[in-house]
């Protein structure tokens, strides 16, 4: 029974709160720039408006174009469900960190294909850049997973959260892995300096260029999926590197504490993201290899330091 309740909370709460997180980041960014900014609930209103509107499809849009937003959203949603956001108990979905990366890859492929379906040049530019970023980010992510798996002896997130929660101490190698994952997360969620979610200049778009042809409920699904992906990466980093308060058993009080702390971690992550984005400028496309190459280097250094510390022990 408790397991079912936990699963339902895991399914519903992140989707329900993801727009709030995006609204929060936008609000903080606006305040940092000296503007009042839109209301916190504005993303919900935008989504509701898009859902009500009738989608306009291009004449030659195929079934893949219509299906991809739902498939991509389903993949991100399933990946989000596999992250132990407030409890490690009873969450044995059988999807580890590699499977989560795979599901996000599925979402990326579907949206990139949908971007090419109508046959416009902007769709192609977006798909091309999105897949380039993916190809640069995945090696860095995998090497960071190696570093984490060396500490936790597992690629399953509940085990990682437990191992890190049991006090592995402050380690240089983990800081390097954190750096690698944060950089990958920035690239994968399309944030500054890799992509600008608020841009309206076509030539600098990546994610937005792929979804230019979408409207109505299809666009709502894509927007909600992007918001959920941001919540997913923040939750992922939070559950691995700040596993404090994640409930180990199905005790109601512990679960409540876990849920409350998850919200606090999301807020802190959103705040950090807003400050970082305000302080930095967007990069040129051909600077991505340097950015994500640094992430790969961090990951490899993390693994090497772990070897050395294990050897010295």
């Amino acid at each position: 029974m408790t397991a079912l309740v936990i699963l339902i909370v895991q399914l519903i709460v992140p989707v329900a709160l993801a727009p709030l997180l995006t609204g929060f980041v936008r609000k903080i960014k606006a305040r940092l720039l000296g503007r009042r900014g839109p209301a916190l609930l504005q993303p919900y209103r935008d989504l509701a408006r898009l859902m009500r509107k009738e989608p306009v499809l291009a004449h030659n849009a195929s079934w893949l174009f219509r299906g991809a937003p739902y498939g991509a959203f389903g993949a991100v949603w399933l990946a989000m469900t596999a992250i132990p956001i407030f409890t490690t108990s009873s969450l044995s979905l059988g999807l580890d960190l590699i499977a989560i990366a795979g599901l996000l890859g599925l979402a990326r492929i579907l949206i990139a294909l949908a971007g090419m379906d109508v046959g416009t040049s902007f769709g192609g530019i977006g798909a091309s850049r999105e897949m380039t970023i993916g190809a640069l980010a995945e090696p860095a992510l995998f090497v960071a997973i190696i570093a984490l798996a060396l500490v936790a002896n597992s690629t399953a997130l509940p085990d990682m959260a437990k191992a890190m929660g049991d006090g592995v101490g402050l380690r240089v190698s983990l800081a390097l892995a954190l750096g690698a994952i944060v950089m990958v997360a920035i690239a994968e969620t399309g944030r500054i300096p890799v992509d600008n979610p608020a841009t309206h200049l076509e030539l600098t778009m990546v994610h937005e260029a792929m979804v230019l042809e979408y409207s109505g409920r299809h666009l709502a699904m894509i927007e909600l999926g992007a918001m959920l992906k941001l919540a997913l990466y923040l939750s992922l980093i939070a559950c691995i590197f700040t596993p404090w308060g994640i409930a180990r058993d199905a005790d109601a009080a512990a679960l409540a504490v876990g849920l409350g702390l998850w919200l606090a971690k999301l807020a802190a992550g959103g705040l950090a993201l807003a400050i970082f984005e305000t302080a930095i400028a967007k990069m040129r496309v051909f600077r991505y290899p340097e950015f994500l190459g640094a992430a790969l280097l961090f990951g490899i250094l993390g693994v090497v330091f772990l070897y050395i510390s294990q050897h010295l022990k």
Partner: protein
Amino acid sequence: MSGVDQWALIGMVQAMFLVLAVGGCMANRWPVLIVPLYALAALACLIGTVAALSTLLAADGGVSRLVLPVGLPDIQSHLRLDGLAALFLAIVNIGGIAAAVYGIGYDAHVSQPARILAPFPLFLAGMNLVPVADDAFTFLIGWELMSVASWLLVLTSHEQADNRRAALVYLTMAAFGALALLMAFGALAGAGGGYTFEAMRRATPSPTIATLAALALLLGAGSKAGLAPLHVWLPLAHPAAPSHVSALMSGAMTKVALYALMRGLLELAGTPQWWWGGLLAVIGGLTAALGALQSLTQNDTKTLLAYSTIENIGVIAAALGLAVAFKASGQTLQAGLALTAALFHALNHSLFKSLLFLGAGAVLHGTGTRALDRLGGLIHRLRWTAPLVLIGCLAISAVPPLNGFASEWLVFQSVLDATGLGHWEMKFAAPVVGALLALAAALAAAGFVRFYGIAFLGRPRDRAAAGAHEVAPSMLAAMAGLAGLCLAFGAWPGVPLAPLTRIATTLADPSGVLSGPLLDGRTAWLAVAPHGELTAVYSGLVAALGLAALTGIVVGVASMVSGGRVRRGPAWDCGFPNPDPATQYTASSLSQPLRRIFGSVVLAARDRVEMPPAGDLGPARFASTLRDPAWHYLFDPLIGLITRATERLNLLQFLAIRVYLSLMFAALIGLLIVVAVAR
């Protein structure tokens, strides 16, 4: 089923292939034979599959032997059917069924069908003989039959000069590979002449001999499988053959080569040394990344698929290398897991690569072109082919819930295990190989988004694509069967993994140290859970059902809220839609960022744009050049060297008879001196 029955089935299959080859020679005169010949070939492969599966599914993994009184004097022909052989027989014959069924529709329009139909059964016969061979001669006869028959198939469209060149390069490399294998077997048989594999298993060769044999095996089988830098023939030869033969060459023949590598390194070549495995893992990682990158830069549908085969062979070789390294270090459990990963990826690759080659054949059949830049919008014309090829693209891109992800997941688990190896070289190689494999997977995903997006999506770039027609039902049936297997093995990886773990345990642990099974058996139908120091679970079923359920919920909610209406209108394209399909992204432009980032270093890729002078209304021209590092650094210099040497040696042809006689005398004296010194 007892052993006798399996041998009867296998014998029947070989006999059928021989009869079919004779019948195939007459297909030019009586084209009506095409359909029955292919149907019988499919039936023969079905019988072969049944024989293989009955061995695979036998709980004891029963080994059965057969000695035929044919072959060289005093040696006879030894045959042996065990789990590993049965798995590769199954891979060959499942691919064979699909190719033969597909051929029924495909060959109806070929001008000289005998050119395909005569060597096609021989090719299958060779691939059916290699896995069951249990002595070096029978093995090499099967191997050479496979090579020569596929060489004939590469020459099917011999009137094109490119195909003739491809066939020549292929034949040269095949001869080289067979020579290397001959050396390997010769070294292992030693002076005693134990040419049966049974004798090689019992013998304990000295480390030097074993290493020499292992390197020769790596050259011989690796060149056939397509390991860099000996891969150069593969992207020339595989696309030149008819599409269903390309599917067999990429899907089945490369696997037979990997079979030789597995059999040789893990069973025949004595005690493995850890660095063989390390070398193979690093070569595998590099091959995977290089193959994926080159696949991304090709504009020909079938060449692109051939390079992607090289990538997947690299992945399998990396896992196999880790298995060898684990076995040499005494970590039997991890060796078994790495070998399971290699076997599972081999099986999966044979399925989705066959599917994709058949799909590329359907595109060629429907449009008449292999040039990616002339296609587009086929999703509207090839209504059934398009979703089937999409399944293949997703499977090869290694995303859940398809089978490609399940096996790559196991490979990545083995890479993580490899951080626990004792040797520092291997410890440092592990993250590097892991990063290379991750890079290869991501590049493959980009490459197949490019392949599918350019060929099937967008607007038709050419009249050929605009007027494309759907292919024959038999071709669709072959693709649908393979796509169904991709989906099923993705959702229930535990089902194929059960026999694979038995095979891997037998190979990794011949002395029986291992107490338990490799995978956690309790939840096998639900999830894959390797035993070992690392705990991890992957459930294909949860991924498949979860995706279906969550996507279903989203679709339901969205259509409930918004009523499910849509309106059609012109494309938006930021307000400036251009009706000319040439304004779409092309295959070259889609891969431009990755070509510039990686290709400019590895492939010396250069893009050149020639603009007309100001005021001139002529077109601007774009040219993109790249080169394969293996050709540039290895083969071109080698070919130059051989050409110069043969020109020098040509002098020998024009000597007087007395000079020849004195040369022969000198050679005799030289040999006698060698013998005297050796004594």
